[in-house]
């Protein structure tokens, strides 16, 4: 339908928000984590970030060009996808893997389904899952850690805890972020600063990340096996991709519910699944699979939680009328 015809009755609220502006806010919010990742992992991290973003933007441009569609690069969503994907890489992966991931994220996960707004799962996470399944050896190798002299050695803090070494984990370093891991996930402080910015600008609200983190925290306390141990709880919250996932990826407009109740249900399912994957699963991390899986439940959640319109009586189920 033409934009001219699609006008509702007055009064109209004018807002400056459009896709481009919102994506720009997300990029700004990711900058602290990005900069910290480059500081922590060195120039290779910077190279991977540039390559992934370029690959995403290039794929989107090429797809639209080849299929004679309107150019959508300017809405910056491909930049966000590329940035999020790069922040999910270990700094040691080969450069071509970053490019392949970007192409997969944009072409297969986003454009095949019809572009921005139609994709059934978060493109960055879809591509990450593709790479993890294809190149498990590369994508879970965190041994290259050039940052500091007194390093932890190979394992990420979460993997150390999974192996029973809670005492060896330095909580303060996990919060600051000077630990091995993927490029953007290590620093809880940088991620929370970015998330605060997004919340202040009204881009995301606290319903999804709030319920997600709360549910996960309760789950960990109940089933983690350490009882009410603050060290364990904080390291589970600060470690792995929980902060990055909860604030930046679970809140993706396209793949999260639009209804207020739906957002809360979505956050609770995310928290439960992440807890189950981390504590009972074989791997130490479970945020990305939890988000992908819950993304697929979103249409169902939205169907359950359609709000009642003002002034309209609730529809009774299966009202049988006499046929006369």
């Amino acid at each position, binding site marked *: 339908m033409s934009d001219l015809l699609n006008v509702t009755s007055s009064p109209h609220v004018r807002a400056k928000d459009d896709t481009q502006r919102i994506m720009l806010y997300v990029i700004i919010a990711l900058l602290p984590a990005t900069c910290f990742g480059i500081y922590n992992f060195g120039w290779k991290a910077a190279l991977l970030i540039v390559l992934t973003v370029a690959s995403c933007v290039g794929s989107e441009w090429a797809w639209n060009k080849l299929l004679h569609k309107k150019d959508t690069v300017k809405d910056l969503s491909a930049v966000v996808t590329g940035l999020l994907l790069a922040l999910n890489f270990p700094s040691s992966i*080969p450069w071509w893997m970053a490019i*392949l991931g970007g192409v997969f994220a944009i072409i*297969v996960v986003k454009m095949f389904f019809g572009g921005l707004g139609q994709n059934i799962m978060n493109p960055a996470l879809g591509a990450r899952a*593709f790479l993890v*399944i*294809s*190149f498990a*050896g*590369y994508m879970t*190798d965190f041994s290259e850690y050039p940052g500091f002299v007194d390093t932890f050695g190979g394992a990420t803090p979460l993997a150390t805890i999974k192996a029973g070494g809670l005492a060896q984990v330095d909580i303060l370093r996990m919060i600051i972020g000077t630990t091995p891991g993927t490029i953007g996930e290590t620093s809880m402080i940088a991620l929370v600063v970015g998330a605060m910015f997004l919340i202040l600008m009204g881009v995301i609200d606290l319903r999804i990340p709030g319920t997600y983190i709360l549910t996960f925290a309760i789950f960990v306390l109940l089933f983690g096996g350490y009882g009410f141990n603050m060290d364990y709880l904080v390291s589970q919250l600060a470690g792995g991709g929980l902060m990055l996932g909860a604030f930046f990826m679970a809140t993706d407009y396209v793949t999260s519910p639009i209804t207020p109740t739906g957002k809360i249900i979505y956050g609770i399912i995310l928290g439960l699944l992440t807890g189950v994957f981390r504590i009972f699963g074989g791997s130490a991390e479970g945020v990305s699979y939890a988000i992908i899986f819950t993304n697929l439940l979103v249409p169902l959640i939205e169907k359950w939680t359609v709000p009642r319109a003002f002034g309209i009586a609730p529809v009774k189920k299966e009202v049988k009328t006499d046929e006369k």
Partner: protein
Amino acid sequence: MMKEDTISERLYNGIIKENPVFIQLLGICPTLAVTTSAFNGLGMGLSATVVLALSNLLISALRKVIPDRVRMPAFIVVVASFVTIVQFLVQGFLPELYKSLGIFIPLIVVNCIILGRAESYASKHSVVLSFFDGIGMGLGFTLSLIFIGGVREILGSGAFFGFQLLPLADKASGTMGYTPISIFILAPGAFFVLALLVVIMNVVRAKQEAKGKPLSAAGNGCLSGECSGCALSATCSGKTQAVAVEATKGGESA
């Protein structure tokens, strides 16, 4: 245009025009499950071809004897007998292939290509034509499986028919080479490859049709009301009015 119902037309029909995998999208379960390599695709395809040709032959020969009401059980018995023979042959002479195909050899019994051809072609046409219809469909199935299996094997393990095309990279020793994208020999890869190949097929078909040279007439039968050649005619709910009326009339008179 080729004449209907000749031996060569049947072969062309099975391999290109109504290719069971890419055009009719039948037999998708074995297609997705066994095509982890080109050789597995070949083995599965040839096993199905043998069963298809022989069961088409026998069902066509028995088409006047089998009562209409029990035709489905009768077809299944014929197909199952041939599948059992093929299964024992593969198990006896190609134990490696038997191991990798596993449950999918016995499952040829319920392969919808075979029942579809029996229902829509063999039960209505002569023995020779039915036999070649089976061969054509079987070869179409085999070529599609080799194609899908080949793409998956090349991407997923850098090999073709077990022959290593590129030296593999080794992360531990730092050897340069091809790093296999192992998702392609896992279940998701089957969906990616099948979907992409069907997309390419459809693009090619659309281009041919735009040029006025239709590569495939599949779907045209629906417009002209000719359901007899269609594998889905038994279950299709979208038959044209005339055909539906005709079918009920035929049923009454029988």
